[in-house]
């Protein structure tokens, strides 16, 4: 039984290595029928960033959120461009905080090789994103939500003050709403805070 398992494991590894070692003409091969926008949506979900999206997110909402967390393919996010294995390796390594360990970041194959060495299977989107987990220090949108579209406004309060682990900043509204009254007797030396 052990022998059969070992043979199966060796065969599986060999098949995987063959797939990884197939860049044609220096170009990383493309995974089938998956666009970068689909990958971006999956990356947002797997990285625990969904809660930072508005309820009707656009493609730019997905890609901008990922860019703010340092997750971006070599040539940027292009919504309907097919995903390459190099880009897949890159964004997964970025999302797992391993991007700075890639020996030759300018070489797409280097990303693939490093990912494979880390046990990340970049053959398919599903396999590659398997090791992803919510980011420990996600960077969400700032409180300066500009849109007049009420569907895009985030909650106004941040109870613990650190919903985003980029730079922590209180929403403006949380500073002195609602109790602040400029004419209260104590207002000259005391403000209010949520």
């Amino acid at each position, binding site marked *: 039984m052990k022998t059969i398992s070992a043979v199966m494991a060796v065969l599986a590894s060999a098949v995987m290595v063959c797939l990884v070692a197939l860049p044609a003409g220096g170009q990383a091969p493309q995974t089938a029928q998956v666009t970068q926008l689909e990958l971006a949506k999956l990356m947002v979900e797997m990285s625990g960033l969904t809660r930072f999206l508005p*309820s009707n997110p656009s493609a730019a909402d997905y890609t*901008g959120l990922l860019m703010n967390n340092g997750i971006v393919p070599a040539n940027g996010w292009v919504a309907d461009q097919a995903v390459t294995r190099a880009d897949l390796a890159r964004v997964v390594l970025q999302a797992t905080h391993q991007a700075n360990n890639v020996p030759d970041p300018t070489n797409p194959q280097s990303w693939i090789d490093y990912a494979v060495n880390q046990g990340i299977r970049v053959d398919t989107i599903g396999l590659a994103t398997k090791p992803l987990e*919510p980011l420990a220090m996600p960077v969400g949108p700032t409180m300066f939500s*500009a849109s007049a*579209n009420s569907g895009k406004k985030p909650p106004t309060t941040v*109870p613990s003050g650190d919903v985003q682990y980029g730079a922590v900043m209180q929403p403006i509204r949380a500073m002195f709403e609602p109790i602040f*009254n400029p004419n209260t007797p104590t207002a000259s*030396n005391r403000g209010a*805070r949520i």
Partner: protein
Amino acid sequence: MNKNLLIMAGVVFGGSLSWGLGADSLIQVQNGFRFQWNDNYYQAATNKTSSGIITEAPEVMANFNRENTFFGLHYRPSFMWFTNPSIVRRETVQHELDVNWNQTLSSRVQTSINESLRRGVQPEMLDRNNGLVFPDQSYYENTLNGTLGIQLRESTRLDGSARYYLMHYDADAVGTNANYMLFSGGLALRQELSKATTISGSFNYDRAEYSQIMARSASTMSMGAGVDHTFGPRLLGSVSGGYQLKSFDLTSINGQNSPYGSFSVTYLFDPRIRMTAGASYSLWEADITNYASQERLSSFASVGYDVSSRVSLFASGGITRGKYRADQSVIAGDVVLQGADQTTMTNTQVVDGLDTVYQLSVRLSYQLNRHNYLDFGYAYTTVSSDLRPTFAQNTYDIGWRITF
């Protein structure tokens, strides 16, 4: 033996984390522990109240991912202890709950429901004579969004959204002016012009209802258009603009029609350095309770820099300016409410004025290993205002975050 025990414990722990959600699901537990020093907790001009704040915040995140269904859950209670004995309620707890459900109903129709609940139990404050300076500011804030998206054509999408928002303070002294509900509905039509450019048009209707102070209740209609454009691999930009019509329930308060607009850009200097900046102008809920509305102009910039594989640096700055009009005072004539209980009446003039908030924040994050992070932060806030006393506040914090 010890090794076996460790393995057993690991298996049991891991198994408990992935309980019931299957192979494509993920539950992650994190824990944050932070000490913060705030030199002006109550945002006072003088007689500042400083305090150390110890925060313990466990966090649970769950993702349930299937071909047509995504369900995400995030819950974080924050237990806070204040070291300053002049703060009456020195132990507080805050809750944050976020639930996201995305469902693909067919190849052309998707729906999503997003729920965010915040519950804060806030400190009160007594002055030296044991008098109440600030009442209990404990609150519930709930946001429920629902969206139905229809892919009309390959490059055309229509989103219908609805939103229910509730802000409720426990104490009457606070809630009288500030408890309100917001009902919103809107349509957004998006058309992809090219690989890099998407245009959109939107219509929104908002209805704000304050439970006890009718003067702040209002209805707003917004119509506008926007463009998202990818300028290149490293530059992403969005711009939108339109017109808003706001009317108040009280006919004595002048309604207001105003253009609105916003833009933001995200730029990657190189893969390790990224920047987002933007600005907006629009009508907004008033932050100062004597007024029914404000015209808000805000601008911001944020930079993230991965210094090394272990060290990341973040910095953000922003300026927000609110313009308030005397003819939108919620107080009849020259009479304004005074006192923490908001019951004393005097004849103080309500004037036109500007209120400007400046913020700066820096954070350094150090990854000890795959599961442990240290972070160091500093934030500065100051206010310049025609309508209220100014203040400055500095906070310093050091935190430890562990992921399991």
